[in-house]
């Protein structure tokens, strides 16, 4: 009896642990803060595509949107019967069609360049679906993907980088620093939960698209006997390049047909296997390049490739964008959420958490009082000096060696004195040691000061505010007492 109970308890424990792990994984998958660099680049590319798409609508604006145009209200209503299909175009009188269209182009342009992105992203989405629903008979895959990408770009922080919003943010910070007579630091970029959510939703949606695109093809004989790609090649209305020469090489169509099916059906699985991801994305790139080049659907091929960017890692993206002009201004620096206590979701390193560390922290804050350490790190982060924390001298030495901060602040008042002394001795023995700021009580100063005699060390025993300390630190870093100063001060 007791054996059975033990087994039951074991199963219960296993279920609890598994359930907890699942929930932790779920939380990490959807809500681990993400670097906005991927979403920002997607905003630039998708924004450009939205602008172009709507620019082209304007060539025959009346033909596509007027009541006496191709998409007559009667025809559209009969197609959309029973559907909820919102579009502001139903309420635009004919004499206002051009002003409304120009205003929409203006909004899309602002979204493209990342101006007031939080507002323009929502407007861009509403514009996209309004045009699509009103001119439904002229829609195809491009409009579907435009719609879903613009929806998800409303959620994430796509305007954080590569945007006018970013430029404004930097400009404001520069002016504020000038007004306060302080050295200017470029505002850092903080990973955000909304960005992760948007990227995940795009990823999941693309998996659904390819899964059903692949599975639905399995109903047709041509996708089994290898003729499907030939049938696409031999469709004159889709043709951009004459591919009829492949009739003498049937294996080309066979290979392309089978590859397409395998790629689409297995995409939702293979894309999550990290070592295979570059190959899967490369094959997708080739496929969509083929659709663009051979079938003339460049816009559709490109928007799908833009969507694939959601699967790229922020690190790779930053490496590729590393040579853009005004890099600091446009891309900023992304810090792992460990740098600031305000990040609630601090997942362990795992498959889905990819913090991007571009720069070393400006500060290592050694303080055993957790709340004070957190508050001070938050203060310095907002002042443009992101830092990492440590609770003891022993731990601080390791953190210092790993993170290589530009300066160290040691709050000695609550740390055991032997720990403070051993850290001080070890730190000063290192060549080229970082500037060290030690805050001690008057009682401690008598005993500890002799251990910290060095050009790069400053000991404070008097009352000192955070503002004052920040000025001291920035002054020391700007004075060039250490070769690492440029890592944080711009």
């Amino acid at each position, binding site marked *: 009896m007791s054996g059975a109970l033990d087994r039951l308890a074991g199963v219960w424990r296993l279920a609890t642990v598994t359930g907890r792990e699942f929930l932790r994984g779920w939380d990490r998958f959807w809500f681990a803060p993400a670097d906005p660099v991927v979403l920002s680049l997607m905003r630039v590319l998708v924004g450009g595509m939205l602008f172009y798409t709507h620019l082209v609508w304007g060539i025959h604006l009346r033909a596509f949107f007027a009541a006496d145009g191709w998409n007559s209200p009667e025809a559209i209503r009969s197609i959309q019967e029973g559907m909820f299909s919102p579009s502001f175009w139903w309420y635009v009188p004919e004499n206002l069609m051009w002003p409304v269209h120009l205003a929409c182009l203006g909004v899309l342009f602002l979204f493209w360049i990342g101006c007031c992105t939080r507002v323009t992203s929502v407007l861009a989405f509403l514009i996209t679906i309004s045009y699509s629903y009103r001119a439904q008979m002229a829609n195809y895959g491009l409009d579907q993907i435009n719609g879903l990408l613009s929806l998800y770009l409303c959620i994430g922080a796509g305007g954080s980088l590569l945007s006018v919003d970013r430029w404004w943010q930097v400009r404001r910070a520069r002016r504020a620093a000038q007004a306060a007579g302080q050295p200017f630091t470029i505002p850092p970029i903080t990973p955000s939960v909304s960005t992760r959510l948007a990227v995940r939703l795009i990823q999941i949606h693309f998996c659904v698209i390819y899964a*059903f695109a692949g599975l639905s093809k399995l109903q047709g004989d041509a996708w089994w006997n290898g003729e499907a790609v030939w049938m696409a090649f031999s469709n004159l209305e889709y043709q951009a390049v004459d591919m009829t020469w492949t009739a003498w090489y049937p294996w080309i169509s066979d290979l392309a047909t089978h590859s397409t099916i395998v790629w689409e059906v297995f995409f939702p699985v293979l894309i999550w296997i990290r070592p295979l991801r570059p190959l899967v994305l490369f094959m997708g790139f080739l496929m969509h390049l083929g659709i663009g080049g051979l079938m003339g659907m460049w816009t559709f091929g490109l928007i799908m490739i833009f969507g694939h960017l959601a699967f790229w890692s922020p690190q790779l993206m930053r490496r590729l964008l590393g040579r853009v002009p005004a890099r600091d201004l446009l891309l900023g620096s992304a810090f792992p959420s460990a740098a600031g206590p305000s990040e609630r979701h601090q997942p362990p390193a795992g498959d889905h958490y990819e913090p991007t560390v571009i720069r070393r922290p400006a500060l290592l804050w050694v303080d055993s009082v957790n709340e004070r350490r957190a508050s001070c790190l938050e203060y310095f982060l907002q002042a443009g000096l992101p830092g990492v924390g440590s609770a003891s001298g022993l731990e601080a030495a390791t953190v210092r060696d790993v993170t290589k901060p530009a300066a160290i602040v040691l709050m000695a008042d609550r740390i055991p004195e032997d720990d403070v002394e051993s850290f001080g001795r070890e730190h000063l023995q290192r060549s080229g040691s970082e500037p060290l700021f030690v805050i001690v009580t008057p009682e401690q100063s008598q005993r500890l000061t002799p251990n910290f005699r060095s050009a790069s060390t400053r000991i404070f025993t008097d*009352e000192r505010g955070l503002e004052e300390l920040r000025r001291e630190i920035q002054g020391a870093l700007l004075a060039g007492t250490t070769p690492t100063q440029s890592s944080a001060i711009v």
Partner: protein
Amino acid sequence: MILAVSPEQSEQTVSSEVRTQQQRLDQPEPLNSPASAPNHRRGFFRKLGYVCLNVLLVLHVIAIISAPLTVGPASSTSRKLWDVMSPYLQALYLNHGFHYFAPEPGSSNLVSWTVTRPDGSTVSGQFPNFQISPRLLYHRHFMLSEVLGNSEPEQQPEIVRGFARNLLREHGGQSVSLSTIRHELSSMPRIRAGGRLTDADLYTEQPLGSFTAKDLQ
């Protein structure tokens, strides 16, 4: 904030400046603190928001799967799911099947037309045609003819009348006649035997009717 002065004062190091920051950071107060009540409430609402967000995420993923799942042949369960989810998907323009070139690539549809002007002169055309540029605009016209060619019989008259009305307006015509042309695909053996994609026998024309401006009012 005063960082440190003496051991006695160290308990008070979290001075007003830090306290303000702490409140901003939403760090929990000790449970016995009178200030903890609002934080508890905030914690409850945050948890509630988190749960709601997760439920919404699950529903959203089910919804985006339900749209392509309902494209025939579909089960009665998937159709019921679609009935529930469709308003949400339609509102967000996510109601798509993603059945690209499925079950297999097929023939194309074109529309040919002739407009007669008040002076008796006629102008003829066809869409899509490769003179339409840029390519995106060409595809817009191609989709118009495809929708007409693949539409339900009861929808076709309204679509044709819309096309006729636009052609009359664009060309200042008095009457217009339209027909739809189906362009069948060519097989590999046919091409190898010297056939071409533009061979006349691959095209089948079906008249859609003639309309005057008066008919369309």
